[in-house]
């Protein structure tokens, strides 16, 4: 999930380092605009479709949660 982490740190957070397990929504690190760009990034980079009903806190709160979601989608052929 290296590209994902790089994208979050470099493009969304201006170089700030974050832990994989850090809750990015709770601390206000990511705002709603950032979540939208993140969805677009994931769809392109990992070649999966992310429907609106999947853009929920459980799937996007931290880098490892996003990684888990992406792998699940890839396996299910989404």
């Amino acid at each position, binding site marked *: 999930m290296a590209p994902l982490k790089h994208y979050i740190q470099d493009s969304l957070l201006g170089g700030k380092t974050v832990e994989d397990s850090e809750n990015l*929504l*709770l*601390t*206000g690190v*990511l*705002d*709603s*605009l950032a*979540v*939208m760009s993140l969805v677009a990034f994931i769809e392109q980079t990992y070649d999966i479709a992310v*429907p*609106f*009903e*999947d*853009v*929920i*806190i*459980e799937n*996007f*709160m931290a880098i490892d949660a996003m990684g888990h979601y992406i792998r699940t989608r890839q396996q299910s052929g989404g």
Partner: protein
Amino acid sequence: MQEPAFLDDALTHWAATSPDATALHFVGAATSYGALEKAADHLAAHLISLGVSRGDRVVVYAAKSPNVIAAVYAIIRIGAIYVPLDPSAPQERLNTLIAATTPAALMADPARVTLLATQHTSMKRVNLESELPEPASPDVVRARALERSSDDPAYILMTSGSTGTPKGICHTHKSGLAYAKMAAKRCDLTQTDRVSHHTPLHFDMSIFDVFSTALAGAMCVIIPEMYAKIPASLAKLVQDARITVWYSVPYALIQMTERGALDTRDFSALRIIMLAGERIPPAALKTFSHHAPNATFLNAYGPTETNHCTTATFTHDALDGITPLSIGRPDDGVIARIGEGFLEDETGELLIASEQVMRGYWNDPVRTDATFTILTSADGETRKYYRTGDLVSRDKAGNLVLLGRMDRQIKLRGYRIELDEIEHVLGRAPNVTEAAVIVKDDALYGFVCGPADLDITALNAYAAAHLPAYAVPACITGLTQLDRTSTGKIDRNALATRRHDIATA
């Protein structure tokens, strides 16, 4: 209930008569009225032990939570004044606001207590999540509560003001309660209601969420900030908490409509959708309304200085998705008039006289005086009116129609232009969900929100076809989202700094 005189009286009443009823709902956890009253008294005793006195300002600097609501009650119970600050505001802004209100104490969540630890060292600090020492006898708190007058200031809401100097809008127990009572009645709130608390505390709409809800002994469903960013989770919370009364800026609803996966949600419990803070895009509201079959829609109007003071009510049938929504009629206890003439003007500034109106701007008698005007009406009554700065007229049915801000009426190359009218035209164009127009360096700039493949060429043609040539924006930019302030309103200052910087989509 005995007629309440203070903003915290309803809490005491329900804690005594229905102690087990749920006052606050927060990600599945419930706080009863009894427990909230106890928590408020505990914090109040702690503030007294820190030396906080009647009339002192106490800053509340935290994300929404049950502890924060207990803190608000604690502060006003001992006659102090709560000053809620935007939890996401930059440090520099906080310093300005703290300097303007010279608070005696700060109550914050753990992350934020330390953020300000090295500055403002004379302020006492309370960490809202730490264990507090056992309180002194509750009688100390009671004694303090009894010293208060309902004309005492209860809260100060800070706005940036167009010049950048902060204005502190100061409400008393009396003015806050006059509003809370009116609005609770307007929405027919009862003990069985579950009311959303979406709006951050530093924004006036939270007065309804917290105090109108408490007057009815209803349940306040606190929406964690995290949910406000993720529309699909927000929509699930609205469904799962079976919220009956929703109150927010239109933007929150638009986000849920666009990205909330609403086809999979059940919003049948919603009976009132009340929106305020800025104009409602008619098409977006219409789309949302299909998902809330049992709801009535309220457009609430009112500056922070007056609280929400006029309301328009719409049934499903009345929403056509095109007509701009009126702001309705003055609410109970509110006198509204247009212009300062002996007889009302057809179009002019909206003036408001009511017990709901603020006491004044904190520590700023000059600005306070300038904002009020004393007028005698045709009925022979002399009243003190607040000048809203909003331009209104009445439609045929007698409803007030908001035309725009007085200061959004500009002159450009000799033409008088209403920026809000241009926004309305752009907002009506095919596929556009929202529009904002700003003026910078003597040119008009339009920003619109819509699908990624929005046709800007077609939009330019639409603007040229529907607006006089001098009112057509020099440049229209398509954005996936308009910039927003922390309270969810369109941030036109931020848009002004964008101008050409963004490539059109």
